[in-house]
């Protein structure tokens, strides 16, 4: 019997690190020397998906940019929990201006870098879904269409968490928020509303658009790294569960994110110049119930009785994603 190369590494690249893998194949997060761009001592809630996503993304970006990085941040949880006077958790040059202008501030920084001849200093803008899909959408679209040399990262936790969990245009159907309460005939957020920002970003024809999840670190890091190697406007939309707003257990943050991916509700895709070029396949497909049941914001879909109709509707969304992006 001829010896086949062994490709199986116990956990492969699904875990953060793997002692059996070559150093170069391990994640940035596995590295003892990682930047910890968002350092300890921040005031995010226990189990905050956004804090995690931000460190994942910015650490990866720092590695890709050789630490030559500047970040602009929209108002929101990430900003509030990271920089209350007199302490900041950021280790990178960072600016917070307003809720709706992170993309524009980043465009300005990029312009300054260009005019100052600071080659190699890369610019990231980041914000939550509210700061991205709603109030910051104008500036973001402008940054896209000008093809400014900025990587915009949206940490999507599907509502305005900083202000107490109000609906945003990224809130999914049926989800309970403070402004779409779980009362009345059809409790929760109205179906058929909201917008898909990655697809809108793609419609701008910008060089790179991707979706990522805190549940898939290697995929996330690969996308950030990829984006950092491209010039022009780039967009990465990261799914980050919010235990507080979603009513999920703090310990389940990654699990919830994983169920979103594995159910097909949050497809992991990559697009270049408006065309989808790759997708992460679902490893172990689960019905949407597995995702929804972990979150109190969807509790009314199961109690007092099963809302069969709307569960089927949500399942259809997942099925459509799977078919549309070839996730299986």
């Amino acid at each position, binding site marked *: *019997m001829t*010896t*086949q*190369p*062994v490709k*199986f*590494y*116990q*956990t*492969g690249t*699904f*875990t*953060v*690190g*793997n*002692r*059996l893998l070559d150093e170069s194949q*391990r*994640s940035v*997060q*596995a590295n*003892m020397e990682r930047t*910890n761009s*968002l*350092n*300890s*001592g*921040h*005031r*995010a809630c*226990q*189990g*905050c*998906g956004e*804090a*995690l996503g931000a*460190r994942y993304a910015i650490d990866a970006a720092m590695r890709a940019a050789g630490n030559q990085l500047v970040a602009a941040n929209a108002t929101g949880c990430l900003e509030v929990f*990271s*920089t209350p*006077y*007199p*302490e*900041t*958790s*950021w*280790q*990178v040059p*960072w600016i917070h201006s307003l809720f709706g202008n992170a993309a524009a501030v980043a465009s300005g920084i990029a312009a300054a870098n260009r005019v100052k001849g600071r080659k190699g200093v890369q610019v990231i803008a980041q914000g939550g879904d509210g700061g991205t899909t709603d109030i910051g959408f104008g500036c973001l679209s402008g940054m896209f269409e000008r093809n400014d040399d900025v990587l915009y990262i949206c940490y999507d936790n599907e509502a305005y968490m900083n202000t107490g969990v109000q609906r945003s245009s990224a809130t999914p159907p049926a989800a309970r928020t403070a402004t779409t309460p779980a009362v009345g005939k059809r409790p929760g957020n109205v179906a058929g509303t909201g917008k898909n920002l990655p697809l809108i970003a793609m419609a701008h024809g910008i060089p790179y658009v991707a979706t990522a999840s805190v549940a898939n*670190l290697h995929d996330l890091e690969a996308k950030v790294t990829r984006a950092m190697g491209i010039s022009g406007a780039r967009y990465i939309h990261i799914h980050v569960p919010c*235990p507080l707003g979603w009513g999920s*257990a*703090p*310990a*389940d*943050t*990654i*699990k919830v994110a*994983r169920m979103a991916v594995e159910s097909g509700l949050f497809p992991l895709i990559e697009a270049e110049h408006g065309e989808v070029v790759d997708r992460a396949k679902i*490893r*172990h497909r689960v019905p949407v119930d597995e995702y929804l049941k972990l979150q109190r914001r969807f509790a009314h879909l199961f109690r007092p009785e099963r809302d069969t109709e709307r569960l089927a509707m949500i399942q259809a969304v997942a099925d459509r994603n799977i078919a549309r992006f070839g996730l299986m």
Partner: protein
Amino acid sequence: MRKPFAITLDVGSSLANRTGTWRTERPVYLDRLPPCNHACPAGENIQGWLYHAESGDYRRAWEELVQNNPMPAVMGRVCYHPCESACNRGQLDQPVSIHAVERFLGDEAIRRGWAFPQPASESGKRVLIVGAGPSGLSAAYHLRRLGHAVTIHEAGPMTGGMMRFGIPKYRLPRDVLHAEVQRIVDMGVTIKLNAKVDNILDTMRAGGFDAAFLAVGAHLAKRAYIPAGSASRILDAVSVLRGMETAERPQLGRRVVVYGGGNTALDVARTAKRLGAEEAIIVYRRTREKMPAHDFEVQEALEEGILFKWLTTIKQAGETTFTVEKMELDETGFPQPTGELETIEADSLVLALGQDVDLSLLDRVPGLVIEDGVVKVDANMMTGHAGLFAGGDMVPSERTVTVAVGHGKKAARNIDAWLRGARYAPAPKHELASFELLNPWYYTDAPKSVQPMLDILRRQSTFEEVTGGLDEGNALFEARRCLSCGNCFECDNCYGVCPDNAVIKLGPGQRFEFNYEYCKGCGICVSECPCGAIRMEPETI
């Protein structure tokens, strides 16, 4: 930079904010008992040696393995691997083929001539072991490692006991057995063959032994009363299998009936087939499901053309004909005669109905208690007579090679303690790493490697080993299927998934530490630990 007041801050200054005070529960690292280890009668640290095998360090894997079991090449072949039945991976796809990796390591050790270390110092104590079977050899090995002088008295002409006289060579090639016994001998263990002990106390006194371990096995075939003519050829399984190891090969004829439902019955039937029998029929009074033999062995036997007559008893033996009666199961699952008779043709009948222990050497030993034909021992494997220990098939337990090896180890540790005037206290067992404690999403999907099987024609005609070993690539693959249940394998997940950077990575092989200054106690590390090696514990307030 003259920074503006308050709105512009120095980086990383949040370290002043000790968020650890938020915590109501704290994560702690722990080692849990992997189910394989828990299930191993020989007390192997299976996960421990797989860990080294995963990285391709077979020597360290083997060294870890032989801490508990000196005969991995044998064990990898003959053990019925309860570890695999317990393996958590079985709930994911298929269990890790632990026995196959163990066999690979054992074969690798033989091939490369790896030897056991000599004891660091001699204790000056002398221990007598009666019986060179798996239990005796295991005890000898462990006692020798502890620095005691060991002498084995073996009644038979060869070492191995039931490993030789109970297990056909197509399952355990004799060169493998020899190599692993020899490696024990090479540690300085004296083995006296054809040296039956008639009276244990006399022998101990004569040899100046400080303690003895009795492991004579169960070699007396059980008989059943079957009315038979004088010309009937009726043999017992022990004699048939023993005969295979000596010059006088048993004459079984063209058609052989084997009576019994245990593994020995299968061994005899398959041996008969290889000796040239055209037909080998196993007669068993109950159904296949009720058969004590392992299913995989039944399967192999069926492949080789062994015939089975279920729900059947033998009523009478003639010269070439045997009268059998059909049975049926009652409500309690017990077979009841139906009175329906038939006749089958056969040249011989082999009874495989179990074995008894020859306890003659223990006559008049004070304090020693015998019950149901076996010797009573306490939790420390000691008989009622101080200094006299016993194990293997002669004590009440399941009669397998692996159990015997485990007895040998346990007895050796207790003998060692007893010799030092102490009492052996095993390390407390960790809590079990059950499947629910794992997060299996992280493990790569990988069905188990299949060991090559000898083709059917050669299996029916020769005594070549039926099941092949894994090659290095397969063995590595298989080792890496281990989930490392309950024990950190440094996947960095906790280090990565902490939103508060509150896990400190201590470096390769050093595992991790929580930074409780900042840990908010969210528990993501616990949820995302693939192997269940972290637990939340309430903070004392």
